[in-house]
């Protein structure tokens, strides 16, 4: 299933549950990582001219570029990373949060992270910067909400 399709028809909860289900079949970390690698390939890749320092997220050992665009009340995210697993993780976030309203993004409870075993990645000091990515997405949401309301 393609991410783009999912965005418009399913709720955030639906998609989170979907991801949890997909990951449930793997109890080995290597399989989870393999799946993340697969997912990373589905990431709507950021325009190369957007891969600039201003779009870099701090606090990751790998580089993560994240771009947000406001489209009729919703935010579309695109991203890239030079590390594959990080790219897979950001792809999951985008699958859940892209095409949502600022309010939805600001209020989201990303419970899937815990359930698929990435909770430890949420620690503020985790060098993969999952927390920084989420923070950045919420910052965009806040900025657009402020701007357009």
């Amino acid at each position, binding site marked *: 299933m393609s991410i783009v399709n999912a965005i418009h028809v399913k709720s955030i909860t639906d998609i989170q549950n979907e991801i949890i289900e997909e990951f449930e079949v793997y109890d080995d970390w290597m399989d989870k990582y393999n799946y993340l690698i697969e997912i990373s390939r589905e990431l709507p890749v950021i325009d190369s001219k957007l891969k600039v320092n201003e779009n870099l997220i701090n606090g990751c050992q790998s580089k993560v570029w994240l771009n947000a665009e406001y489209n009729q009340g919703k935010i579309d995210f695109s991203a890239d990373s030079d590390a594959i697993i990080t790219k897979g993780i950001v792809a999951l976030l985008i699958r859940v949060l892209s095409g949502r309203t600022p309010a939805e993004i600001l209020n989201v409870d990303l419970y899937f992270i815990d359930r698929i075993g990435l909770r430890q990645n949420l620690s503020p000091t985790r*060098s993969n910067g999952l927390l920084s990515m989420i923070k950045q997405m919420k910052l965009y949401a806040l900025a657009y909400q402020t701007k357009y309301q």
Partner: protein
Amino acid sequence: MNFNIDQIRKDFPILSQQVYNRPLVYFDNGATTQKPQCVINCINDYHTQHNSSIHRGVHYLSEKATEDYENARKTVQHFINAASSNEIIFTPGTTSSINGLAFSFGERYIREGDEIIVTEMEHHANIVPWQMLCERKKSRLRVIPFSDEGILKLEELDRMINEKTRLICVIHVSNALGTINPVNEIIQKAHQHNIPVLVDGAQSVQHTSVDVQQMDCDFFAFSGHKIYAPTGIGILYGKEKWLDELPPFQGGGDMVDVVTFEKTTYNSLPFKFEAGTPNYIGAIGLASALDYVTSLGVENIAQHELTLLHQGTEKLLNLGYVKLFGTAPHKSSILSFIVNGVHPYDTGMVLDKMGIAVRTGTHCAQPVMQHYGIEGTVRASVALYNNALEIDALVEGVKKVKTMFG
């Protein structure tokens, strides 16, 4: 009060130690405190199961250690009620906290002719770094005196503050006299002139509850080893607005963002002030000690210690030949005295052989001794695990000293 001292004493294995075949009576708590079993276990477990360097590691142990270290920071934050964990800097101890601050504050704000105010009651750790800074910057150290009871003469402060004053540094609880200084009042006065205040809390956090937001101090320093934690770890608290402006005290790993030989940029708070591998096991041990203190209740501890302090004061004074230094009404934990006609060192030597550990000498506060024109005192300092029997042992010891030296 829910403070079972007999039970609590069992938490500290060293208290069942014998010295010279006598039970140890440890009254040198102002110098360093003993460690409860939970802190000892915490360190032990860390070394046997979890040890790993923090921050830049991708692996399991490193992630765990990093998380524990950052949680320790939050524990400290809540213990002194700081507004943010970014305001909690781990240092090797109070002395390092103050020296670090003296360097950074000095570089940023101190120019020739500026003035820094300290008190006559300070520990050397809160004098010498400022003297060194003043010498470097050709600025001036001014000193708030205290009265013979050991009370700061705050009216002098009013006269001393002027447009050249850049910082006021004050000891919260005097390690030589026990006085609890009116830091709130000092801070209020200072802030009326936009002058920041550093509070040396090395002798206060373990004895009274500290709330840096309520106190409104700009900086606060203390040492882990004086609050039942391991050696080699301490805290510098600073309001975020100050820490943001100050340059780092030290350079090295972890405190940087980008390093090139042309230009180096620094990491964000609190990391900017933590160059190199920190004493993360010390920090985690400190959190464990603070949890222990919290579990007993800081107010309960304060009350228990105050009872002992009053008992000690009364019994020593009743002997008729003991002179007490530090008789302010608002006091904590310190009995600083001389047995009339007996050198403090002789007193300490004899008490030692009775198993009673006290400190003698100037207690790193020579100006306090100069104030009274004495060489030093005997200092018995009380901690949460001391009890009334130990106070009696001390009084008996003093009696023995008197009969021996006459």
